[in-house]
């Protein structure tokens, strides 16, 4: 299996949803490989997102004479995809393509190895992100900044709103 072709396929994996989708696809392909002749080929050619990249990784007669080799490649690929570490990124709004691309680019820059991003939508963080990687929690949300601002400016806010009660 060519490393370049494999990296091309893995580059399509950005989020946990992508990983789940690819793993389901590889599983279906492996299952169908020995069951019905021609079925695996149909499944592979009809997957627009991963089909082309995956075909490039397989031997020429993968669905006829070289099924065993193809099966090994699919198994090894499945294991590698499962073993990819993930980073959790919490955001306040639904992820758009631009946001996903931002996160993907950030992941590529920030980490040496390939990482898959698990994006969770948490409106209570208001804005920004919360990153959780290797058990480390980094709160870079707007809600956190607002709370810290409130804590730092407690005295001033208290004076401004005059909350000191009268002597009882």
């Amino acid at each position: 299996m060519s490393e370049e072709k494999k990296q091309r396929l893995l580059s399509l994996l950005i989020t946990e949803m992508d990983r789940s989708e690819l793993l389901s696809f590889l599983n279906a392909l492996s299952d169908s490989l020995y069951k019905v002749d021609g079925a695996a080929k149909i499944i592979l050619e009809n997957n627009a997102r991963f089909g082309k990249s995956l075909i490039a990784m397989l031997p020429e007669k993968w669905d006829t004479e070289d099924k065993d080799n193809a099966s090994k490649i699919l198994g090894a690929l499945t294991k590698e995809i499962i073993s990819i570490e993930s980073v959790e990124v919490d955001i306040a709004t639904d992820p758009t393509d631009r946001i996903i691309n931002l996160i993907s680019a950030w992941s590529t820059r920030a980490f040496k190895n390939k990482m898959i991003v698990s994006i969770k939508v948490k409106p209570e963080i208001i804005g920004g992100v919360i990153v959780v990687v290797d058990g480390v929690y980094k709160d870079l949300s707007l809600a956190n900044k607002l709370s810290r601002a409130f804590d730092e400016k407690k005295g001033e806010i208290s004076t401004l709103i005059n909350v000191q009660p009268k002597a009882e």
Partner: protein
Amino acid sequence: MFINPALYVFLIATIILLCIVLVAIVLSYIATIRRLNHLESEKESLYKKTLDEQHEAISAAQKKASEIVADATHIKTETEEALNSSISKLSSDFLSAYQTEATKLKNDNINKYSNISKSISDIVTGNLEDLKKIIAQQTIDSQRVVEVKFKEEYQKLEEEMTEYKKERIQKINSNIYEILHNISRIAFGKGISLQEHEELIAKALEESEREIK
């Protein structure tokens, strides 16, 4: 009319007999009357005699009684005089002794009562003084206890009040901060556009990238 001669004789004999009986009865009556008169005269003489004897006896008794009364009067007078004299003497002595004893007893009693009264007065005064001291001491102790208790309670109350005030202030502050915080969050959340979200995410990711590196 023919009468039987036998019957005639019988009748005449009967009449004669009856006359004889009648004469006998009359004679007997007369004798009885005489006897009665005799007895009556005896009775009167006896009564008269008895009365005379009675008069004599009464006279003698009266005379004797007069003599006895005269003697008795004489004795009585003497006795009375002696008795009066004795009584007077005895009375005088007894009165004197009685007065002396009475005076002595009175004085003794007065002294005793005075002493008793004084003793009682001393005891009562002493007891009263002790009681006063005890009451005063107890009052002072009670006042101290009450004062200490009052101070403790007051201090406790003051601490509770301070704590309560602190809690209230914290609660009010906390609530107000929370309200302000929530309002700010809502305001920020609603006020952020998609583009601003993207910018905030990009900025946060850059910041985290620096920290990760």
